[in-house]
């Protein structure tokens, strides 16, 4: 019994982390139809900047805020000056974001060196809880709560605010949105920056578990893609459900079928796509 509770918690907390990493990717694709290959770089750079802030100020909250905002700013620059020129041109977009992925990873190596860094946890969640003999790290419980909080905020923004309505209009039909007088151009910049913000947030918040290290950009990117594709591109609900599915499958796959650890992420994805070609919640 305890085994199942413990392992389920592991899977859910990892799934929530994956949701944080993937939500921005899905949001950006939904509105702008861009497969943003620098999403993992945002994670990595966010983690590094956050860590630098943390060393300077000793404040985890400041690290989270400043790290994420800095990367959001980078997102604004990227969207305004580069991506804008390649609107809806899939192949050059791929080439551009791949090139930036290379540049960012080499820059990070140049600035922060190659050694893996660990983000220290905030003081409040440094300890493990002991519930009836079951030891569980409080930070992971916090991640579950934080992930749900982010999901709720995103849902509220999308469904309950003016800007959310504009985004939904843009997702449904860009031309009509323009005709309705929505400033689609500004909307693109905002959404892209917000997506970058979420990825960097994942970098600082996920840092205490996953770490910040060269190569994390590519690994996070792959995981993010898997989650978003399983859930369905552009769907927030899909990113949440996809994250949980991948988190739980990966966890129980490794525990119950250790010999197949290499396949716990990609086999389910191939299967789901073969049955549902646009993911669980994706539109045709």
């Amino acid at each position, binding site marked *: 019994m305890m085994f199942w509770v413990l392992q389920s918690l592991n899977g859910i907390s990892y799934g929530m982390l994956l949701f944080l990493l993937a939500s921005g990717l899905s949001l950006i*694709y939904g509105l702008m139809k861009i*497969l943003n290959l620098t999403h993992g770089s945002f994670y990595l750079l966010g983690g590094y900047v956050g860590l630098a802030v943390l060393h300077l100020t000793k404040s985890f909250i400041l690290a989270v805020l400043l790290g994420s905002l800095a990367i959001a700013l980078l997102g604004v620059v990227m969207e305004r000056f580069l991506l804008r020129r390649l609107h809806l041109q899939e*192949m050059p977009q791929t080439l551009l974001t*791949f090139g930036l992925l*290379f540049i960012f990873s080499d820059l990070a190596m140049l600035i922060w060196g190659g050694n893996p860094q660990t983000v220290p946890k905030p003081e409040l969640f440094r300890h493990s809880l002991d519930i009836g003999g079951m030891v569980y790290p409080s930070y992971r419980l916090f991640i579950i709560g934080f992930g749900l909080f982010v999901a709720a905020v995103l849902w509220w923004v999308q469904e309950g605010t003016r800007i959310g309505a504009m985004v939904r209009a843009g997702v449904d039909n860009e031309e009509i949105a323009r005709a309705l007088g929505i400033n689609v151009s500004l909307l693109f910049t905002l959404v892209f920056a917000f997506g970058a913000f979420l990825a960097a947030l994942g970098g600082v918040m996920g840092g205490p578990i996953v770490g910040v290290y060269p190569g994390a950009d590519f690994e996070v990117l792959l995981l993010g893609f898997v989650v978003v*594709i399983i859930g369905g591109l552009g769907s927030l609900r899909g990113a949440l459900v996809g994250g949980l599915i991948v988190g739980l499958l990966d966890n129980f796959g490794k525990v119950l079928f250790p010999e197949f650890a290499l*396949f716990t992420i990609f086999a389910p994805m191939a299967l789901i*796509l073969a049955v549902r*070609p646009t993911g669980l919640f994706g539109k045709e």
Partner: protein
Amino acid sequence: MKTTSPARMALFLAVAAALALILPYVLTPYYLGLVVKMMIFALFAMSLDLLIGFTGMASLGHAAYFGLSAYVTGLTALTLGWNVWLALPAGLMASAVAAGLFGLLALRTRGSYFLMITLALSQLMWGIAFGWRSLTGGDDGLPDVPRPRLWQGYSLTDGVSFYFFAFGLIALSGWLLYRITASPFGQCLRGIRESETRMLALGYDIWRYKFTAFVLGGLFAGLAGSLYVYYNRFVSPDYIHVARSAEVLLMVILGGAGTLIGPAVGAAIIVALENVISAYTERWVMLLGFVYVIVALFAPNGLTGLIESLRKKRAGP
């Protein structure tokens, strides 16, 4: 669509053939080896171009067929002592069969989902190569693959003869790919790329066309993989890794998708950057990144697209 006259085409081919014949006698063995590597990746990129450029199916798992064929050729040559005429076709058969099976699953999806399901399938293949250590040697792969043996007692031992062997097969494949894309079948693929619904309305069985293109792409990628295993004389899971699939995808886009020659040029450029420039600067990854960014911004249709538009500009309105 083609603006080159037959005469100019013939001249171009004659010059290329003459160059190919002279190369082994002017280049040092190391640079000749590098040329062979470029040619192998050119074939690999052209095989992917059949999917991306002509049919509109961007695959991020093309290394699966490259690697599978390499493993089959390498294993049969190493453990069963098969010669080229057995080991090479065995590799090609395997990659065609795998492409057929994967195609059944992958062709249910489109666009980004297609990109990701091909990635997932190739990662499964990578997992098998990595995990089945008794057969594949796991992470370290299979070293000491014998040199290509043409018949009993005769193997291609020196760089020059291997160059001609590889060049012959790759030139033949390039010609076949050109014929395929120029044929009515190729026209249909282009039609599918432009609009599936229209082709469907015209009564074409588009699934069959896409499936055939997918298998053909896997087959030619397999040939590139088998040549690569003979070239390196080892095979490791790295052949199948997603990084390689991404690399070949970039080669195609960099050179210009849908032109065959473009991806071949893209492949040559990336191989050169990776192997020559890296001796001069430690920051060649960043350099490569800047090349991608600049090409994306200023030549969104790839390098051949850029040349084409420059030529049009010069020809005037």
